[in-house]
């Protein structure tokens, strides 16, 4: 009996567990156990239990930013070479980077997520923009929504989603939040006091100060962004692909008109400047095998079953979570459920992971403390403030 600790979803992982149990012919039986909804709460629970050498944790669905913290103290069982070779074939670049720590594959890539720019075709048309054919910049969508008195859908709440946004803005401006992620805590240097950090702060500060996100911005998460986007004030939104299946389900159960669905377009994440390629957010889930599990070999076997391209395609089509394996995108069911699958795949190739460091929680929380609320973000002071806070916290000189 193997236990697979999963993040809550629409039942897709439980279904895959059932199929793998059947396919194993009695060799193992895979049972899922659901972790808290919030990614940081999932990390808290797993890290505490692994620190206590919990042998009941066989397989874990891990959010990529927390992988370094789990790998560094040896909480993850090493990936056997032959398994590593098999599970990395045809995997998108972003997902491979996210599954690796210290140049070694430490988890099995499962699904890979990325944010797209979702837009109301009517609003884009009125602004003379065509994001489908020509990439748009943050300035363009800010101006368009301001001119038409609409709200931008961005995640300004003090949570992980704010870090996702900051990282994408800094990376799209050609910067990086941590310059030496593999350094010990007291030697980590941040790349925020740079033109890229300032560009990111300028965009976020302007959206906050000019109320372009609406009054909900300081508490707006992905779900709240979607509600605003679906409403009368909806214009442009950066968000994960779940928004498509959620809106489609809303149309099917009669909450929304088909006209809303027809008015929704999608494109690559906005650029910071017109001449620089965008760097969309990267998310998803990788599978880690608990170092203290009594069945490490069997667990890797089960993990290989879970991540087959067929299962990834099925998971995408039913639960809206995009595959990390490129061959899964050829599945007809995928293209039927997600007409934007090709854009997602392209976005995954461009996606930049959040800083990979065992001190990710400190970095992410430090950013959230200093870049919230968005209306108080100032390009002249915010990057320096967050650098000072995070550096002091990592040196153990300050609370967070």
């Amino acid at each position, binding site marked *: 009996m193997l236990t697979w600790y999963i993040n809550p979803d629409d039942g897709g992982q439980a279904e895959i567990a059932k199929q793998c149990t059947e396919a194993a012919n009695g060799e193992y039986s895979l049972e899922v156990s659901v972790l808290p909804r919030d990614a*940081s709460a999932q990390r*808290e629970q797993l*890290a*505490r239990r692994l*620190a206590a050498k919990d042998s009941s944790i066989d397989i874990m669905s891990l959010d990529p930013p927390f992988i370094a*913290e*789990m790998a*560094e*103290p040896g*909480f993850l069982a090493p990936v056997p070479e032959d398994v590593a070779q098999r599970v990395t074939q045809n995997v998108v670049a972003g997902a491979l980077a996210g599954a690796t720590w210290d140049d070694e594959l430490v988890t099995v890539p499962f699904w890979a997520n990325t944010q797209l720019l979702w837009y109301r075709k009517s609003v884009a048309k009125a602004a003379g923009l065509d994001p489908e054919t020509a990439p748009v910049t943050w300035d363009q969508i800010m101006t368009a929504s301001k001119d038409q008195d609409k709200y931008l859908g961005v995640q300004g*709440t*003090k*949570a992980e989603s704010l870090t996702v946004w900051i990282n994408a803005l800094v990376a799209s401006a050609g910067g990086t939040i941590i310059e030496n992620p593999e350094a010990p805590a007291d030697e980590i240097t941040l790349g925020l006091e740079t033109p890229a950090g300032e560009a990111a702060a300028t965009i976020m500060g302007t959206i906050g100060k000019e109320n372009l996100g*609406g*009054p*909900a*911005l*300081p*508490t707006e998460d992905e779900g*709240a962004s979607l*509600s*605003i986007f679906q409403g009368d004030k909806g214009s442009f939104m950066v968000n994960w692909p779940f928004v498509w299946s959620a809106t489609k389900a809303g149309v099917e159960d009669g909450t929304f008109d088909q006209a809303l669905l027809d008015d929704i377009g999608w494109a690559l994440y906005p650029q910071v400047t017109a001449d620089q390629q965008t760097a969309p957010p990267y998310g998803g889930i990788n599978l880690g095998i608990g170092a203290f599990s009594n069945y490490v070999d069997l667990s890797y076997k089960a993990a290989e079953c879970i991540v087959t391209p067929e299962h990834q395609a099925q998971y995408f089509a039913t639960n809206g979570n995009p595959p990390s394996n490129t061959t899964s995108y050829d599945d007809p069911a995928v293209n039927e459920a997600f007409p934007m699958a090709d854009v997602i795949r392209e976005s995954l190739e461009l996606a930049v992971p959040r800083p990979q460091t*065992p001190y990710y*929680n*400190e970095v992410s*929380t430090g950013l959230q403390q200093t870049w*919230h*609320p968005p209306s108080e973000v100032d390009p002249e002071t915010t990057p320096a403030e967050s650098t000072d806070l995070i550096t002091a916290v990592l040196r*153990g*000189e*300050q*609370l*967070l």
Partner: protein
Amino acid sequence: MTTVADKKPDLHDAAAKAGRSDRARSEARLGWLLAGPAFVVMLAVTLYPILQAFYDSLFNFRLTAPDDKSWTGLTNYSVVLTDPLFWQALGVTVFITVTTVIVELLLGFGLALVMHRAITQLRGLLRTAILVPYGIITVVSAFAWFYAFDINSGYINHWFDWVPGISPDLNWFAQQGTSLFVIIMSEIWKTTPFISLLLLAGLSQVPTELEEAAEVDGATWWQRLTRVVLPNMKAAIMVAVLFRALDAFRIFDNVFIMTNGANGTEVLSLLAYRTSIGRLEIGLGSAISVLLFLCVILICWVAVKLFKVDLAGGARGAG
């Protein structure tokens, strides 16, 4: 009765001890046998974790880096005590404690008076009904209040948009003042019943003859309340205040659910949680927990020594 016992000379006490009868001794032994196991369990589940936390607080210890554990003495305490975040969290915690206790005491006393005087026939039903908010799990009530005030899903903005300052665009959880208002309101809604029941018990202990005598002497309603009723239920009031103050000082759920400490609503328990559980910094987090514990001890000490709360007498009065 207790004051008489306190005044007994020590010599007399010793003599009484020496001259204790066999019966008294065996009763004392039986007492220890009966209470002993519970006492041991209490020590195991309270004293041990407290000592462990104090021990851990002297180390630089991160749960995900067990090999790097090192002795730092009181460094963690100096980091915490010199950090403005700690003092801000302490300030917010004290503000919430003081505000909720005062409002709950006034409201609770009003409710207790209504139940005691006005509606005697329905008292049983009323007591049960009034306890409903107190019976709701705090996390559940926190979510209920959060969703009621939330700018996207809430109904408060729509129901009360005729009130100046409230509009559909008011985001309650985006500023410190409005966030604290909702958090405090939720606390008050939930725990006023507790205070009102403690005070009702205190009220029913006040001998009716005293009040009648005062009335015959021509005392007004206000004079009877302030000169007869309140002094006679002081013990119950102080026990209610002490219990609620200790409870309110450890506030966690409401803040965690509604703002998670954003916009300057951080409280001490949340800071301890985020440090120990979120950052897995066991050493630093334990230091905050120990300081929180010392604050709670201080509140008890102030109540017992300065305001002379007699816990045993109060409990009898409240019971």
